[in-house]
Protein backbone atom coordinates (compact mmCIF):
# COMPACT_ATOMS: atom_id res chain seq x y z
CA UNK A 1 0.00 0.00 0.00
CA UNK A 2 1.20 3.50 -0.82
CA UNK A 3 2.61 5.10 2.34
CA UNK A 4 0.30 8.10 1.95
CA UNK A 5 -2.76 5.85 1.79
CA UNK A 6 -1.48 3.95 4.82
CA UNK A 7 -0.92 7.21 6.70
CA UNK A 8 -4.46 8.43 6.02
CA UNK A 9 -5.82 5.04 7.03
CA UNK A 10 -3.81 5.10 10.26
CA UNK A 11 -5.00 8.64 11.03
CA UNK A 12 -8.59 7.52 10.43
CA UNK A 13 -8.12 4.70 12.92
CA UNK A 14 -6.52 7.03 15.47
CA UNK A 15 -9.42 9.44 15.04
CA UNK A 16 -11.84 6.60 15.76
CA UNK A 17 -9.93 5.73 18.94
CA UNK A 18 -9.97 9.32 20.13
CA UNK A 19 -13.64 9.93 19.42
CA UNK A 20 -14.63 7.14 21.81
CA UNK A 21 -15.89 4.83 19.11
CA UNK A 22 -14.45 1.75 20.89
CA UNK A 23 -16.20 2.80 24.10
CA UNK A 24 -19.49 3.17 22.24
CA UNK A 25 -19.12 -0.27 20.68
CA UNK A 26 -18.21 -1.77 24.05
CA UNK A 27 -21.17 -0.17 25.84
CA UNK A 28 -23.54 -1.33 23.09
CA UNK A 29 -22.10 -4.81 23.22
CA UNK A 30 -22.43 -5.02 27.01
CA UNK A 31 -25.96 -3.61 26.97
CA UNK A 32 -27.11 -6.13 24.37
CA UNK A 33 -25.30 -8.93 26.18
CA UNK A 34 -26.98 -8.00 29.47
CA UNK A 35 -30.36 -7.83 27.73
CA UNK A 36 -29.72 -11.23 26.14
CA UNK A 37 -29.01 -12.74 29.57
CA UNK A 38 -32.25 -11.25 30.82
CA UNK A 39 -34.11 -12.82 27.91
CA UNK A 40 -32.42 -16.14 28.55
CA UNK A 41 -33.47 -15.99 32.20
CA UNK A 42 -37.16 -15.41 31.44
CA UNK A 43 -37.37 -17.98 28.64
CA UNK A 44 -39.01 -21.25 29.64
CA UNK A 45 -37.43 -23.30 26.87
CA UNK A 46 -34.64 -22.72 24.32
CA UNK A 47 -33.10 -20.02 26.49
CA UNK A 48 -29.69 -20.30 24.80
CA UNK A 49 -31.29 -20.05 21.39
CA UNK A 50 -33.24 -16.95 22.32
CA UNK A 51 -30.21 -15.37 23.90
CA UNK A 52 -28.01 -16.00 20.86
CA UNK A 53 -30.66 -14.85 18.42
CA UNK A 54 -31.39 -11.65 20.30
CA UNK A 55 -27.76 -10.72 20.82
CA UNK A 56 -26.66 -11.55 17.26
CA UNK A 57 -29.49 -9.73 15.50
CA UNK A 58 -29.24 -6.76 17.85
CA UNK A 59 -25.50 -6.49 17.45
CA UNK A 60 -25.78 -6.72 13.69
CA UNK A 61 -28.17 -3.78 13.50
CA UNK A 62 -26.23 -1.80 16.10
CA UNK A 63 -22.98 -2.41 14.24
CA UNK A 64 -24.48 -1.18 10.99
CA UNK A 65 -25.88 1.92 12.69
CA UNK A 66 -22.67 2.80 14.54
CA UNK A 67 -20.40 2.20 11.54
CA UNK A 68 -22.55 4.19 9.12
CA UNK A 69 -23.08 7.14 11.45
CA UNK A 70 -19.42 7.20 12.35
CA UNK A 71 -18.31 7.46 8.71
CA UNK A 72 -20.88 10.12 7.90
CA UNK A 73 -20.01 12.29 10.91
CA UNK A 74 -16.27 11.82 10.52
CA UNK A 75 -16.21 12.93 6.88
CA UNK A 76 -18.66 15.77 7.54
CA UNK A 77 -16.38 17.06 10.28
CA UNK A 78 -13.43 16.87 7.91
CA UNK A 79 -15.34 18.91 5.35
CA UNK A 80 -16.35 21.50 7.96
CA UNK A 81 -12.93 21.77 9.64
CA UNK A 82 -11.27 22.41 6.25
CA UNK A 83 -8.89 19.53 6.93
CA UNK A 84 -9.76 18.21 3.53
CA UNK A 85 -8.81 21.51 1.86
CA UNK A 86 -5.41 21.34 3.49
CA UNK A 87 -4.92 17.76 2.38
CA UNK A 88 -5.91 18.51 -1.19
CA UNK A 89 -3.45 21.40 -1.26
CA UNK A 90 -0.67 18.86 -0.71
CA UNK A 91 0.81 16.61 -3.35
CA UNK A 92 -1.85 13.98 -2.75
CA UNK A 93 -4.01 12.43 -5.47
CA UNK A 94 -7.69 12.48 -4.59
CA UNK A 95 -7.88 8.73 -5.14
CA UNK A 96 -5.27 8.25 -2.40
CA UNK A 97 -7.37 10.26 0.01
CA UNK A 98 -10.47 8.16 -0.76
CA UNK A 99 -8.55 4.89 -0.57
CA UNK A 100 -6.86 5.92 2.68
CA UNK A 101 -10.12 6.90 4.34
CA UNK A 102 -11.83 3.78 3.01
CA UNK A 103 -9.03 1.54 4.28
CA UNK A 104 -9.35 3.09 7.73
CA UNK A 105 -13.12 2.65 7.75
CA UNK A 106 -12.84 -0.95 6.53
CA UNK A 107 -10.46 -1.68 9.39
CA UNK A 108 -12.95 -0.14 11.81
CA UNK A 109 -15.73 -2.26 10.30
CA UNK A 110 -13.65 -5.40 10.72
CA UNK A 111 -12.84 -4.52 14.33
CA UNK A 112 -16.51 -3.91 15.14
CA UNK A 113 -17.40 -7.29 13.59
CA UNK A 114 -14.74 -9.11 15.60
CA UNK A 115 -15.76 -7.36 18.82
CA UNK A 116 -19.41 -8.22 18.16
CA UNK A 117 -18.52 -11.87 17.61
CA UNK A 118 -16.42 -12.42 20.71
CA UNK A 119 -19.33 -13.15 23.12
CA UNK A 120 -20.82 -15.53 20.55
CA UNK A 121 -17.89 -17.89 21.01
CA UNK A 122 -19.57 -18.96 24.27
CA UNK A 123 -22.95 -19.50 22.67
CA UNK A 124 -22.37 -21.05 19.23
CA UNK A 125 -19.98 -23.41 17.40
CA UNK A 126 -16.70 -21.90 16.22
CA UNK A 127 -17.40 -22.53 12.52
CA UNK A 128 -20.77 -20.78 12.74
CA UNK A 129 -19.28 -17.83 14.60
CA UNK A 130 -16.47 -17.57 12.03
CA UNK A 131 -18.97 -17.46 9.15
CA UNK A 132 -21.17 -14.97 10.96
CA UNK A 133 -18.20 -12.74 11.76
CA UNK A 134 -16.82 -12.81 8.23
CA UNK A 135 -20.24 -12.04 6.82
CA UNK A 136 -20.82 -9.20 9.29
CA UNK A 137 -17.38 -7.74 8.49
CA UNK A 138 -18.17 -7.68 4.77
CA UNK A 139 -21.67 -6.34 5.38
CA UNK A 140 -20.23 -3.54 7.50
CA UNK A 141 -17.59 -2.97 4.82
CA UNK A 142 -20.36 -2.42 2.27
CA UNK A 143 -22.17 -0.09 4.67
CA UNK A 144 -19.11 2.05 5.41
CA UNK A 145 -18.14 2.17 1.74
CA UNK A 146 -21.67 3.23 0.86
CA UNK A 147 -21.70 5.82 3.65
CA UNK A 148 -18.46 7.27 2.32
CA UNK A 149 -19.91 7.37 -1.18
CA UNK A 150 -23.11 9.02 0.11
CA UNK A 151 -21.40 11.76 2.10
CA UNK A 152 -18.88 12.54 -0.67
CA UNK A 153 -21.67 12.74 -3.22
CA UNK A 154 -24.29 14.59 -1.16
CA UNK A 155 -21.94 16.62 1.10
CA UNK A 156 -24.49 17.07 3.89
CA UNK A 157 -25.19 14.81 6.80
CA UNK A 158 -28.99 14.56 6.76
CA UNK A 159 -29.46 13.64 3.09
CA UNK A 160 -26.47 11.30 3.22
CA UNK A 161 -27.77 9.54 6.36
CA UNK A 162 -31.21 9.20 4.77
CA UNK A 163 -29.61 7.79 1.62
CA UNK A 164 -27.65 5.21 3.61
CA UNK A 165 -30.70 4.23 5.62
CA UNK A 166 -32.79 3.85 2.47
CA UNK A 167 -30.05 1.78 0.83
CA UNK A 168 -29.78 -0.55 3.81
CA UNK A 169 -33.53 -1.02 4.17
CA UNK A 170 -33.84 -1.70 0.45
CA UNK A 171 -30.94 -4.15 0.54
CA UNK A 172 -32.53 -6.05 3.44
CA UNK A 173 -35.96 -6.19 1.77
CA UNK A 174 -35.02 -6.49 -1.88
CA UNK A 175 -35.62 -10.24 -2.16
CA UNK A 176 -39.11 -9.91 -0.66
CA UNK A 177 -39.87 -7.01 -3.00
CA UNK A 178 -38.76 -9.08 -6.00
CA UNK A 179 -40.84 -12.07 -4.93
CA UNK A 180 -43.95 -9.97 -4.40
CA UNK A 181 -43.41 -8.20 -7.69
CA UNK A 182 -42.92 -11.47 -9.58
CA UNK A 183 -46.17 -13.04 -8.35
CA UNK A 184 -48.78 -10.34 -7.79
CA UNK A 185 -52.27 -11.34 -6.69
CA UNK A 186 -53.82 -9.13 -9.34
CA UNK A 187 -52.92 -6.64 -12.04
CA UNK A 188 -49.89 -8.49 -13.42
CA UNK A 189 -50.64 -7.35 -16.95
CA UNK A 190 -50.95 -3.64 -16.25
CA UNK A 191 -48.35 -1.25 -17.61
CA UNK A 192 -47.60 0.18 -14.17
CA UNK A 193 -46.79 -3.28 -12.84
CA UNK A 194 -44.54 -4.04 -15.80
CA UNK A 195 -42.67 -0.76 -15.31
CA UNK A 196 -42.28 -1.23 -11.57
CA UNK A 197 -41.23 -4.85 -12.09
CA UNK A 198 -38.56 -3.74 -14.53
CA UNK A 199 -37.32 -1.10 -12.11
CA UNK A 200 -37.11 -3.59 -9.25
CA UNK A 201 -35.19 -6.09 -11.36
CA UNK A 202 -32.82 -3.33 -12.48
CA UNK A 203 -32.28 -2.31 -8.87
CA UNK A 204 -31.50 -5.92 -8.03
CA UNK A 205 -28.59 -5.75 -10.47
CA UNK A 206 -26.87 -2.99 -8.50
CA UNK A 207 -28.05 -3.46 -4.91
CA UNK A 208 -26.86 -6.44 -2.86
CA UNK A 209 -29.54 -8.60 -1.24
CA UNK A 210 -28.31 -8.27 2.34
CA UNK A 211 -31.16 -10.37 3.74
CA UNK A 212 -29.09 -13.46 2.91
CA UNK A 213 -26.09 -12.17 4.87
CA UNK A 214 -25.04 -12.54 8.52
CA UNK A 215 -27.95 -14.79 9.37
CA UNK A 216 -28.77 -15.61 12.96
CA UNK A 217 -29.86 -19.02 11.68
CA UNK A 218 -26.20 -19.91 11.12
CA UNK A 219 -25.60 -19.50 14.84
CA UNK A 220 -28.71 -21.15 16.25
CA UNK A 221 -29.46 -23.82 13.63
CA UNK A 222 -26.00 -24.73 12.43
CA UNK A 223 -23.35 -23.28 10.10
CA UNK A 224 -24.38 -22.65 6.51
CA UNK A 225 -21.10 -23.96 5.11
CA UNK A 226 -18.34 -21.98 3.46
CA UNK A 227 -19.65 -22.92 0.03
CA UNK A 228 -22.69 -20.80 0.80
CA UNK A 229 -20.96 -17.95 2.58
CA UNK A 230 -17.85 -17.82 0.39
CA UNK A 231 -19.62 -16.29 -2.63
CA UNK A 232 -21.15 -13.65 -0.35
CA UNK A 233 -17.70 -12.58 0.76
CA UNK A 234 -16.46 -12.45 -2.84
CA UNK A 235 -19.47 -10.45 -3.89
CA UNK A 236 -18.98 -8.11 -0.94
CA UNK A 237 -15.39 -7.44 -1.93
CA UNK A 238 -16.45 -6.65 -5.49
CA UNK A 239 -19.17 -4.33 -4.24
CA UNK A 240 -16.74 -2.44 -2.02
CA UNK A 241 -14.45 -1.97 -5.04
CA UNK A 242 -17.39 -0.67 -7.06
CA UNK A 243 -18.38 1.77 -4.31
CA UNK A 244 -14.77 2.91 -3.90
CA UNK A 245 -14.52 3.58 -7.63
CA UNK A 246 -17.85 5.44 -7.62
CA UNK A 247 -16.68 7.53 -4.66
CA UNK A 248 -13.43 8.39 -6.41
CA UNK A 249 -15.33 9.23 -9.59
CA UNK A 250 -17.53 11.70 -7.71
CA UNK A 251 -14.67 13.05 -5.62
CA UNK A 252 -12.57 13.86 -8.67
CA UNK A 253 -15.44 15.84 -10.12
CA UNK A 254 -15.92 17.99 -7.01
CA UNK A 255 -14.89 21.63 -7.02
CA UNK A 256 -13.39 22.92 -3.77
Amino acid at each position, binding site marked *: MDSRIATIARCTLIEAMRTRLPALVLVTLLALLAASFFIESIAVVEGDRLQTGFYASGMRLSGVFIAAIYVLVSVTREFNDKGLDVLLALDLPRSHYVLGKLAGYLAIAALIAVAAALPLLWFAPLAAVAQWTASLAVELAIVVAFALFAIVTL*NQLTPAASFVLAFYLLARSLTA*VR*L*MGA*HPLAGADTLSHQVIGFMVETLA*LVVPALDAWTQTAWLVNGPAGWSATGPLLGFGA*LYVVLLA*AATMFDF*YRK*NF
Partner: protein
Amino acid sequence: MKPGAERSIGTVPRPVLFVFVAALCLQIAWQAWQPRPSARAEALGAPASPATLRALALGEPIALAQLLTLYLQAFDNQPGVSIPFRDLDYARVTAWLGTLIELDPAAQYPLLMATQLYAQVPDEARQRLMCGFVHDQFWRDPDRRWRWLAHCAIMAKHRLRDTRLALDYAEAITRGARRASNWARQMRIFILEDLGEIEAARVLLGGLLASGEVTEEKEVHFLTERLKSLEAAGKSSLPANN
Protein backbone atom coordinates in the same frame (compact mmCIF):
# COMPACT_ATOMS: atom_id res chain seq x y z
CA MET B 1 -17.28 21.70 1.32
CA LYS B 2 -18.27 24.65 -0.84
CA PRO B 3 -20.94 24.04 -3.41
CA GLY B 4 -19.83 24.62 -6.96
CA ALA B 5 -20.15 23.33 -10.50
CA GLU B 6 -18.76 19.87 -10.99
CA ARG B 7 -15.62 19.37 -12.97
CA SER B 8 -15.75 17.48 -16.25
CA ILE B 9 -15.46 13.72 -16.46
CA GLY B 10 -12.11 14.27 -18.15
CA THR B 11 -10.63 15.16 -14.76
CA VAL B 12 -11.26 11.65 -13.50
CA PRO B 13 -8.11 9.56 -14.03
CA ARG B 14 -8.46 6.78 -16.54
CA PRO B 15 -7.58 4.00 -14.07
CA VAL B 16 -10.40 5.17 -11.79
CA LEU B 17 -12.82 5.21 -14.71
CA PHE B 18 -11.63 1.79 -15.80
CA VAL B 19 -12.02 0.28 -12.32
CA PHE B 20 -15.46 1.87 -11.97
CA VAL B 21 -16.74 0.55 -15.30
CA ALA B 22 -15.16 -2.87 -14.83
CA ALA B 23 -16.52 -3.23 -11.29
CA LEU B 24 -19.98 -2.11 -12.41
CA CYS B 25 -19.99 -4.60 -15.31
CA LEU B 26 -18.79 -7.39 -13.04
CA GLN B 27 -21.38 -6.51 -10.44
CA ILE B 28 -24.22 -6.53 -12.97
CA ALA B 29 -22.97 -9.75 -14.54
CA TRP B 30 -22.68 -11.42 -11.13
CA GLN B 31 -26.18 -10.40 -10.10
CA ALA B 32 -27.66 -11.34 -13.46
CA TRP B 33 -26.00 -14.75 -13.19
CA GLN B 34 -27.54 -15.43 -9.78
CA PRO B 35 -30.72 -17.53 -9.83
CA ARG B 36 -33.93 -15.61 -9.23
CA PRO B 37 -35.30 -15.88 -5.71
CA SER B 38 -37.99 -18.52 -5.43
CA ALA B 39 -41.01 -18.32 -3.22
CA ARG B 40 -41.45 -20.80 -0.38
CA ALA B 41 -44.48 -21.03 1.83
CA GLU B 42 -43.65 -20.75 5.49
CA ALA B 43 -45.64 -22.41 8.20
CA LEU B 44 -47.53 -20.20 10.61
CA GLY B 45 -45.65 -20.21 13.88
CA ALA B 46 -47.30 -20.41 17.28
CA PRO B 47 -48.00 -17.03 18.87
CA ALA B 48 -46.23 -15.92 22.01
CA SER B 49 -48.31 -15.93 25.15
CA PRO B 50 -50.50 -12.85 25.74
CA ALA B 51 -48.47 -12.04 28.87
CA THR B 52 -45.22 -12.04 26.88
CA LEU B 53 -46.74 -9.96 24.10
CA ARG B 54 -48.16 -7.51 26.63
CA ALA B 55 -44.67 -7.06 28.05
CA LEU B 56 -43.21 -6.62 24.57
CA ALA B 57 -45.91 -4.09 23.66
CA LEU B 58 -44.27 -1.48 25.91
CA GLY B 59 -47.62 -0.29 27.16
CA GLU B 60 -49.34 -0.38 23.77
CA PRO B 61 -51.07 -3.78 23.68
CA ILE B 62 -53.84 -2.50 21.41
CA ALA B 63 -51.38 -1.20 18.82
CA LEU B 64 -49.43 -4.46 18.99
CA ALA B 65 -52.64 -6.46 18.64
CA GLN B 66 -53.60 -4.43 15.59
CA LEU B 67 -50.20 -5.02 13.99
CA LEU B 68 -50.35 -8.73 14.75
CA THR B 69 -53.89 -8.88 13.35
CA LEU B 70 -52.64 -7.49 10.06
CA TYR B 71 -49.71 -9.92 10.15
CA LEU B 72 -52.05 -12.87 10.61
CA GLN B 73 -54.41 -11.57 7.96
CA ALA B 74 -51.55 -11.22 5.48
CA PHE B 75 -49.99 -14.56 6.35
CA ASP B 76 -51.84 -16.35 3.58
CA ASN B 77 -50.18 -13.96 1.15
CA GLN B 78 -46.48 -14.29 1.84
CA PRO B 79 -43.96 -12.69 -0.51
CA GLY B 80 -44.39 -14.36 -3.84
CA VAL B 81 -46.73 -17.09 -2.73
CA SER B 82 -50.40 -17.25 -1.89
CA ILE B 83 -51.41 -19.95 0.58
CA PRO B 84 -54.98 -21.23 0.46
CA PHE B 85 -56.70 -20.87 3.81
CA ARG B 86 -57.36 -24.61 3.88
CA ASP B 87 -53.60 -25.22 4.00
CA LEU B 88 -53.16 -23.15 7.14
CA ASP B 89 -52.80 -24.87 10.48
CA TYR B 90 -56.16 -23.98 12.02
CA ALA B 91 -55.12 -24.89 15.54
CA ARG B 92 -52.44 -22.22 15.23
CA VAL B 93 -54.86 -19.79 13.61
CA THR B 94 -57.28 -20.11 16.53
CA ALA B 95 -54.36 -19.70 18.96
CA TRP B 96 -53.43 -16.47 17.19
CA LEU B 97 -57.00 -15.20 17.18
CA GLY B 98 -57.35 -15.97 20.88
CA THR B 99 -54.12 -14.16 21.64
CA LEU B 100 -55.23 -11.12 19.65
CA ILE B 101 -58.50 -10.95 21.57
CA GLU B 102 -56.62 -11.29 24.86
CA LEU B 103 -54.47 -8.31 23.91
CA ASP B 104 -57.39 -6.19 22.74
CA PRO B 105 -60.66 -7.55 24.17
CA ALA B 106 -62.74 -4.78 22.60
CA ALA B 107 -61.56 -5.60 19.08
CA GLN B 108 -64.08 -7.20 16.73
CA TYR B 109 -61.55 -7.79 13.97
CA PRO B 110 -60.30 -11.24 15.12
CA LEU B 111 -63.89 -12.50 15.30
CA LEU B 112 -64.63 -11.07 11.90
CA MET B 113 -61.59 -12.91 10.54
CA ALA B 114 -62.75 -16.12 12.20
CA THR B 115 -66.25 -15.96 10.72
CA GLN B 116 -65.71 -14.19 7.42
CA LEU B 117 -62.26 -15.44 6.38
CA TYR B 118 -61.22 -18.65 8.05
CA ALA B 119 -64.72 -20.14 8.35
CA GLN B 120 -65.34 -19.69 4.63
CA VAL B 121 -63.19 -22.63 3.56
CA PRO B 122 -65.08 -25.57 2.03
CA ASP B 123 -64.07 -27.83 4.89
CA GLU B 124 -66.67 -28.70 7.50
CA ALA B 125 -64.19 -29.53 10.25
CA ARG B 126 -62.51 -26.14 9.91
CA GLN B 127 -65.85 -24.35 9.76
CA ARG B 128 -66.90 -26.07 12.98
CA LEU B 129 -63.56 -25.26 14.60
CA MET B 130 -63.97 -21.56 13.84
CA CYS B 131 -67.60 -21.52 15.02
CA GLY B 132 -66.53 -23.28 18.22
CA PHE B 133 -63.90 -20.62 18.73
CA VAL B 134 -66.46 -17.85 18.21
CA HIS B 135 -68.86 -19.60 20.62
CA ASP B 136 -66.15 -19.76 23.31
CA GLN B 137 -65.25 -16.13 22.83
CA PHE B 138 -68.91 -15.09 22.81
CA TRP B 139 -69.37 -16.02 26.45
CA ARG B 140 -66.57 -13.68 27.52
CA ASP B 141 -68.39 -10.60 26.24
CA PRO B 142 -71.81 -11.62 24.89
CA ASP B 143 -73.21 -8.14 24.40
CA ARG B 144 -70.41 -7.15 22.08
CA ARG B 145 -69.82 -10.45 20.29
CA TRP B 146 -73.32 -11.75 19.65
CA ARG B 147 -73.37 -10.80 15.96
CA TRP B 148 -70.48 -13.17 15.17
CA LEU B 149 -72.22 -16.03 16.92
CA ALA B 150 -75.40 -15.14 15.04
CA HIS B 151 -73.42 -15.48 11.83
CA CYS B 152 -72.23 -18.89 13.01
CA ALA B 153 -75.81 -19.92 13.83
CA ILE B 154 -76.87 -19.08 10.29
CA MET B 155 -73.82 -20.87 8.93
CA ALA B 156 -74.54 -23.94 11.03
CA LYS B 157 -78.14 -24.01 9.81
CA HIS B 158 -77.61 -23.40 6.13
CA ARG B 159 -74.11 -24.55 5.35
CA LEU B 160 -73.34 -27.21 7.92
CA ARG B 161 -76.98 -28.39 7.91
CA ASP B 162 -76.69 -28.85 11.65
CA THR B 163 -79.83 -27.27 13.00
CA ARG B 164 -79.15 -28.49 16.55
CA LEU B 165 -75.85 -26.62 16.57
CA ALA B 166 -77.58 -23.56 15.15
CA LEU B 167 -80.15 -23.83 17.95
CA ASP B 168 -77.37 -24.02 20.56
CA TYR B 169 -75.85 -20.82 19.23
CA ALA B 170 -79.18 -19.07 18.95
CA GLU B 171 -80.11 -20.02 22.51
CA ALA B 172 -76.73 -18.78 23.70
CA ILE B 173 -77.48 -15.41 22.16
CA THR B 174 -80.93 -15.29 23.72
CA ARG B 175 -79.64 -16.22 27.15
CA GLY B 176 -76.35 -14.32 27.14
CA ALA B 177 -76.68 -11.24 25.00
CA ARG B 178 -79.31 -9.01 26.58
CA ARG B 179 -78.39 -6.12 24.29
CA ALA B 180 -78.46 -8.13 21.07
CA SER B 181 -80.82 -7.08 18.32
CA ASN B 182 -84.26 -8.58 18.49
CA TRP B 183 -83.82 -10.54 15.29
CA ALA B 184 -80.86 -12.34 16.82
CA ARG B 185 -82.61 -12.98 20.10
CA GLN B 186 -85.65 -14.33 18.23
CA MET B 187 -83.61 -16.58 16.00
CA ARG B 188 -84.03 -19.63 18.20
CA ILE B 189 -87.80 -19.48 17.78
CA PHE B 190 -87.54 -19.92 14.04
CA ILE B 191 -84.91 -22.59 14.37
CA LEU B 192 -87.16 -24.48 16.76
CA GLU B 193 -89.91 -24.13 14.17
CA ASP B 194 -87.58 -25.59 11.56
CA LEU B 195 -86.82 -28.44 13.89
CA GLY B 196 -90.53 -29.19 14.09
CA GLU B 197 -90.75 -28.18 17.72
CA ILE B 198 -93.77 -26.03 17.04
CA GLU B 199 -95.07 -26.03 20.57
CA ALA B 200 -91.79 -24.80 22.03
CA ALA B 201 -91.55 -22.13 19.35
CA ARG B 202 -95.11 -21.04 20.03
CA VAL B 203 -94.54 -20.76 23.75
CA LEU B 204 -91.32 -18.77 23.27
CA LEU B 205 -92.88 -16.45 20.75
CA GLY B 206 -95.92 -15.89 22.91
CA GLY B 207 -93.68 -15.22 25.88
CA LEU B 208 -91.62 -12.77 23.88
CA LEU B 209 -94.68 -10.83 22.81
CA ALA B 210 -96.10 -10.87 26.34
CA SER B 211 -92.83 -9.65 27.86
CA GLY B 212 -93.08 -6.35 25.97
CA GLU B 213 -89.44 -6.56 24.86
CA VAL B 214 -90.57 -6.01 21.28
CA THR B 215 -91.91 -2.48 20.88
CA GLU B 216 -91.65 -1.83 17.15
CA GLU B 217 -95.20 -1.88 15.80
CA LYS B 218 -94.41 -3.63 12.52
CA GLU B 219 -92.26 -6.18 14.30
CA VAL B 220 -95.04 -6.89 16.82
CA HIS B 221 -97.43 -7.33 13.91
CA PHE B 222 -95.08 -9.68 12.11
CA LEU B 223 -94.45 -11.76 15.22
CA THR B 224 -98.13 -11.87 16.07
CA GLU B 225 -98.93 -13.15 12.59
CA ARG B 226 -96.19 -15.67 13.02
CA LEU B 227 -97.62 -16.78 16.36
CA LYS B 228 -101.04 -17.15 14.80
CA SER B 229 -99.68 -19.32 12.02
CA LEU B 230 -97.81 -21.44 14.59
CA GLU B 231 -100.99 -21.86 16.62
CA ALA B 232 -102.87 -22.77 13.47
CA ALA B 233 -100.21 -25.29 12.60
CA GLY B 234 -100.37 -26.65 16.15
CA LYS B 235 -104.16 -27.07 15.99
CA SER B 236 -104.08 -28.68 12.56
CA SER B 237 -101.44 -31.13 13.71
CA LEU B 238 -103.40 -32.21 16.82
CA PRO B 239 -105.99 -34.45 15.05
CA ALA B 240 -103.26 -35.99 13.00
CA ASN B 241 -101.39 -36.81 16.19
CA ASN B 242 -104.45 -38.24 17.74
